C-alpha cells in the first residue's frame, strides 16, 4: 500500500512537497519511521532527492515565520484570568497551591510565613526586624497588578499582588529584605553590602543580579536566577556553616528548598531563557559540526552545562540551528538524531547514549 502511495511522489514538484501533510509532518518532527519511508522515496525516485531537500529547507524557513510575543503579555493575561476566576469562586487552598506550583516556572514567590504565624522563632532575624527597628519600610501590594518598588540604593523589587516586603537598608554591611508572596528582584551591585532575602527558612544572598523567588506558606521555596550569581542557604542550619552548606546558582538555574526536610536542590528552570542577544543567537547555526561544538553553543546561549562522555560521542556530527526552539526541545532533537537521551541533574544536563559510528 505504501508502495502505491509512494508512486505519487514520482512527479511531485517543490510546491507539491511543501503542501504534503505527511512530508511536512516528517520535516518538522522527524522520526525513525518517517526516515525510512522518505529514504525509500528517495531511492525509488533519485531525481526527487534534491527537490525534497529544497522543500524541507523551505518548510523549515516557513515554520520559523511567526511573531514574537513578550512573556510579560502572556503573564499579564494569565494573571487577569486567574485573578478573576479566583474572585468568582475561591479555590480551596490546596488547589491554589497546585496552580501556583505550575506557575512556578514563570513566577517566583518568596514567602515568610513566620510573620503571619505564631512560630516566629524559626527566623530570629525576621523577628528582630519586625520588632520595629528604625529605617524599616513595609510595602503591601493589595492591587491587581505587580508593583515596582524602587529602593534608594538603586535596586528594584517587583512585588506581585497579594505579596508584601519589609526591608532595611540602613545597616552598614548588608541590605535585608523579608518577603511573603512573590517578587522579582533586580539588585544593583555592591560587594560591600550584600543583599539578603529571607523567605520561609531560606536565605538568598546576592551581590548584584536579577532573580525571582517563589515561596508560599506550606509550599517549597523556589529561587530562579536570570543573571549574575546567587547564593542560597537554609537559615535553619547552624549559623556558622549555613552559607558554606548552601548552593550557588547561575542564570537559568533554580533552587527548591523543602523546609520540612531542610533539603535544598539545584535544578534547571522549566523554560530556560536565551542569555545572549537575538543578533548573536542567529549566528549559532551549524553544518556537519561535532556535537561538542553544539553543546558549547548551548552553554553560551543558556549558561547550562551539558555533561557527556566526549570519547563516546566523538564521531557525532550534526546539522542544526540553535536559534529556534527551547533548550529542552533542542536537546530532544539532538537526542533523536544521535539516539541518546538526557537527564537534568543538579542544574546541569547529563547526556547519555552509545555515540555514533564513523
Amino acid at each position: 500500500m505504501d508502495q502505491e502511495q509512494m508512486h505519487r511522489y514520482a512527479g511531485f514538484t517543490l510546491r507539491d512537497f511543501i503542501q504534503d501533510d505527511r512530508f511536512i509532518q516528517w520535516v518538522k518532527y522527524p522520526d525513525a519511521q518517517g526516515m525510512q519511508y522518505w529514504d525509500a522515496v528517495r531511492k525509488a525516485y533519485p531525481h526527487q532527492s534534491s527537490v525534497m531537500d529544497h522543500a524541507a529547507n523551505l518548510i523549515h524557513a516557513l515554520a520559523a515565520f511567526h511573531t514574537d510575543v513578550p512573556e510579560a503579555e502572556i503573564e499579564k493575561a494569565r494573571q487577569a484570568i486567574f485573578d478573576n476566576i479566583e474572585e468568582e469562586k475561591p479555590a480551596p487552598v490546596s488547589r491554589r497551591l497546585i496552580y501556583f506550583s505550575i506557575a512556578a516556572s514563570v513566577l517566583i514567590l518568596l514567602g515568610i510565613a513566620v510573620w503571619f504565624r505564631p512560630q516566629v522563632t524559626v527566623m530570629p532575624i525576621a523577628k528582630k526586624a519586625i520588632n520595629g527597628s528604625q529605617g524599616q519600610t513595609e510595602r503591601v501590594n493589595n492591587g491587581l497588578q505587580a508593583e515596582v518598588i524602587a529602593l534608594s540604593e538603586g535596586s528594584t523589587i517587583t512585588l506581585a499582588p497579594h505579596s508584601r516586603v519589609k526591608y532595611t537598608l540602613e545597616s552598614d554591611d548588608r541590605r535585608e529584605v523579608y518577603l511573603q508572596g512573590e517578587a522579582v528582584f533586580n539588585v544593583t551591585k555592591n560587594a560591600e553590602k550584600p543583599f539578603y532575602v529571607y523567605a520561609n527558612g531560606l536565605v538568598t544572598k546576592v551581590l548584584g543580579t536579577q532573580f525571582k523567588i517563589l515561596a508560599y506558606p506550606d509550599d517549597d521555596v523556589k529561587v530562579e536566577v536570570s543573571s549574575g550569581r546567587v547564593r542560597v542557604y537554609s537559615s535553619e542550619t547552624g549559623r556558622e556553616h549555613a552559607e558554606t552548606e548552601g548552593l550557588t546558582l547561575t542564570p537559568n538555574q533554580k533552587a527548591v528548598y523543602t523546609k520540612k526536610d531542610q533539603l535544598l536542590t539545584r535544578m534547571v528552570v522549566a523554560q530556560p531563557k536565551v542569555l545572549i542577544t537575538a543578533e548573536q543567537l542567529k549566528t549559532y547555526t551549524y553544518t556537519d559540526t561535532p556535537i561538542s561544538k553544539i553543546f558549547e553553543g548551548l552553554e553560551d546561549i543558556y549558561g547550562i552545562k551539558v555533561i557527556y562522555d566526549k570519547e563516546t560521542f566523538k564521531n557525532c556530527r550534526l546539522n542544526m540551528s540553535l536559534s529556534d526552539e527551547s533548550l529542552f526541545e533542542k536537546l530532544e532533537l539532538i537526542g533523536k538524531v544521535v539516539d541518546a537521551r538526557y537527564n537534568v541533574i543538579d542544574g546541569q544536563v547529563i547526556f547519555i547514549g552509545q555515540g555514533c559510528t564513523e
Partner: protein
Amino acid sequence: MRLDEQEYWKEMCGGNAAAFEKLYSYFANDLFRYGYRVCTNYELVQDSIQDLFLHLWNKRSQLREVASPRFYLYRSLRNKLIRSSESDRFVFSADGDLADNWFPNEKDIETSWIMDENNRIQLEMLHEALQKLPIRQQEAIQLRYYHDFSADEIARIMNINTQSVRNLQNRAMQQLRAELPFFPVSMLVVALLT
C-alpha cells in the same frame, strides 16, 4: 512535549483549575503568536485571549468534549478578534495585491546572495517578504507551518473552503518565488535531513 489536551480539557470541564491553568500555559504563547499575526492591535489580542479563557472557565460545565481543544481555541480566538475589530489591519481586508516596493531591491538581493555564506540573510529576507504578503496569506502560512494545522483545519478556522486555503498558499508562493528566484535552490536553513 505534547500535552494530552483532551484529558486536560475534560478535567477543566469538571472544574479542575489546575488543569485549566495547564491548558493556558500550553496554548497561550501560540495563541498570542497567532493573534499578533492577524491583528496589529495587540491590546485587542490581549483582551480577547483573556475573554476567551474566562469564558471557557465560566462555561466549563456546559462545554462538551471537543474533538480538538487546540482547534477550538484558535477558532474561538479568531471569531473574537473578528467581532471586536473594526477598521484594523486585519484578516478580513481584501486579499489585495502586493504593495510596490516591498521587496528588497535587486541590488540588495544580488549582494546578499553573493556574500551570504550562512543563509541567515536569506531567511531574514524571506521573512521580510512574507511579512508584506496580504494578511490572509500570512495567516494561512503561519497556521500551516508554524502551528501545524492541516489545510482542512485551516479552512475551518478561516471559514473558507480547503481549495481557497491552497490558493492562498499558492499565491503566496508564486509571489515569493517571483521575487526571490534564488530562494528554493539555496540551502536556506540547516535541515536535520542528513
